């Protein structure tokens, strides 16, 4: 069985669900909005594997029958729409969500992606060090609470951008003097501005789907706010860069990843970030690349090999 866990209405989850249904896969959707009413029973086998079941309003799922899973849980408060952090239903939902996260981390099923592997993206300088270890060039990066250190960094690099250190979504912006006043109160991440062409690579198992993005904005995701246009077109990566992307995703234990590359005028391939839970439907809609189908096919293949092994 293929288990999907998340909130219906989430585009990537919905599109993978639809792709699985189109091929008649044995798929079961676990709606996170109902976590407070679910029952999870997990036990540890003698060899350290997790066994057990989840029961929701649809029925019971024997977790030993799950061969592959695609997990995109939201924050529990957001998912169950709690009005107060003290609601008893929220406490029940958190307990269930935590149990499911533990299962996703420890299960013998093929999980896209394990929460533990995804968490590296919540500390971006940490992930950048991982990226550098995988052979990609990374922008010179400074995290600081010292405005003088920022000024020296800007003198060295000329153009500098700043963005969040954590997984909190932020708009990548170019540094101005106004922005320096708050640096002393919060560790802030600054990077040398790397000119070049953005390339987004979706790694799905061994499959790569790449797209070239042309945009004048500092952050193409928010291009419309700065009055810029975005154009995208499918792109063939050089073989050595493609192989590096595959190897990096494997090293990070990510079966699905959205890798943000920038091809600099000097020919260097910079990696800016690796998104472990990419919102790929945005790229799919613009380019027509069959990313959700690739994810569905990966899940079906892995579920079948789990059945064969069973």
């Amino acid at each position, binding site marked *: 069985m293929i288990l999907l866990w998340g909130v219906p209405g989430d585009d990537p989850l919905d599109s993978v669900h639809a792709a699985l249904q189109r091929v008649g896969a044995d798929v079961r959707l676990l709606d996170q909005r109902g976590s407070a009413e679910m029952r999870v029973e997990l036990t540890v086998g003698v060899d350290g594997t997790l066994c057990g079941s989840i029961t929701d309003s649809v029925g019971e799922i024997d977790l030993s029958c799950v061969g592959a899973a695609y997990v995109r849980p939201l924050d529990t408060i957001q998912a169950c729409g709690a009005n107060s952090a003290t609601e008893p239903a929220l406490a029940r939902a958190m307990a269930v969500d935590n149990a499911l996260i533990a299962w996703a981390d420890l299960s013998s099923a093929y999980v896209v992606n394990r929460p533990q592997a995804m*968490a590296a993206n919540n500390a971006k300088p940490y992930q*950048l060090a991982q990226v550098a270890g995988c052979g990609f060039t990374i922008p010179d990066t400074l995290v*600081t609470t010292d405005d003088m250190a920022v000024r020296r960094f800007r003198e060295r690099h000329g153009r500098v951008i700043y963005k969040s250190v954590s997984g909190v979504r932020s708009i990548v912006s170019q540094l101005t003097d106004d922005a320096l006043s708050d640096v*002393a109160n919060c560790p802030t991440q600054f990077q040398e501005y790397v000119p070049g062409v953005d390339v987004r690579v979706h790694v799905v198992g061994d499959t790569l789907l790449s797209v070239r993005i042309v945009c004048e904005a500092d952050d193409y995701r928010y291009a419309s706010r700065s009055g810029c246009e975005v154009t995208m077109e499918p792109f063939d990566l050089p073989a050595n860069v493609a192989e590096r992307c595959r190897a990096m995703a494997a090293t990070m234990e990510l079966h699905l990843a959205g890798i943000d590359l920038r091809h600099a005028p000097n020919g260097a391939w910079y990696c800016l970030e690796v998104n472990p839970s990419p919102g790929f439907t945005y790229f799919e809609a613009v380019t027509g690349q069959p990313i959700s189908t690739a994810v569905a096919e990966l899940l079906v293949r892995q579920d079948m090999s789990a059945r064969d092994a069973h």
Partner: protein
Amino acid sequence: MIAVLASRLDPESCATVNAWSSADAALLSAEDLVSPGWAFSVGDPLGGTAVVDGRRISTANITAVLTRRPSVLPEELGRIHPADRAYVAAETNAFLVAWLSALPRTVVNRPTTTSLCGPAWDRLQWQCAAARIGLPWSDADETSDTHEVVVCGNRCVCAHDARESAMATALSRAAGTELLGVRFHRGKIARVTVAPSLTDGDVRASLLDHLLGRS
């Protein structure tokens, strides 16, 4: 300097810093983390600066870090505007994960991406880790009579016998920790913590030896 990353409201950590004053231990508090003076370059962790106990120092002067907290909480950031505290705490924790992971010094415990002081595992996850290396688990509840064995690097303190010592050490290695408290009940593991009590003099001495590279 040994930097002890802990809350000013944690009496055990403050007492440990005092007990280690001759080893140049100092408290690295939440207040320090949102003070001017930090600089960390990815790829050159020792080339930067840190703020410890209100003093700006070269990161290269830090010889070891003991982390006694899984995260920095928004409520601790009293200097920060209440509306910004959750964001600043998230940024601070993310920074610490990167900094503590990169620091080429003894860091006990190294952070994981979800906790500053080692694996943030619940009972089930520790039980899995123990089972995977063949260690017995006790179903004893919180009220049962247990005793804590503490692994400090290569040493094991407070074990009743060699078997307990071997089990605690094996679990610590499997979890990738250098400091681990393992509670035993009748020869089986009952509970595990990455933040064991430091009130015992032998534990404190063993941990200091480990941080100073003497073990």
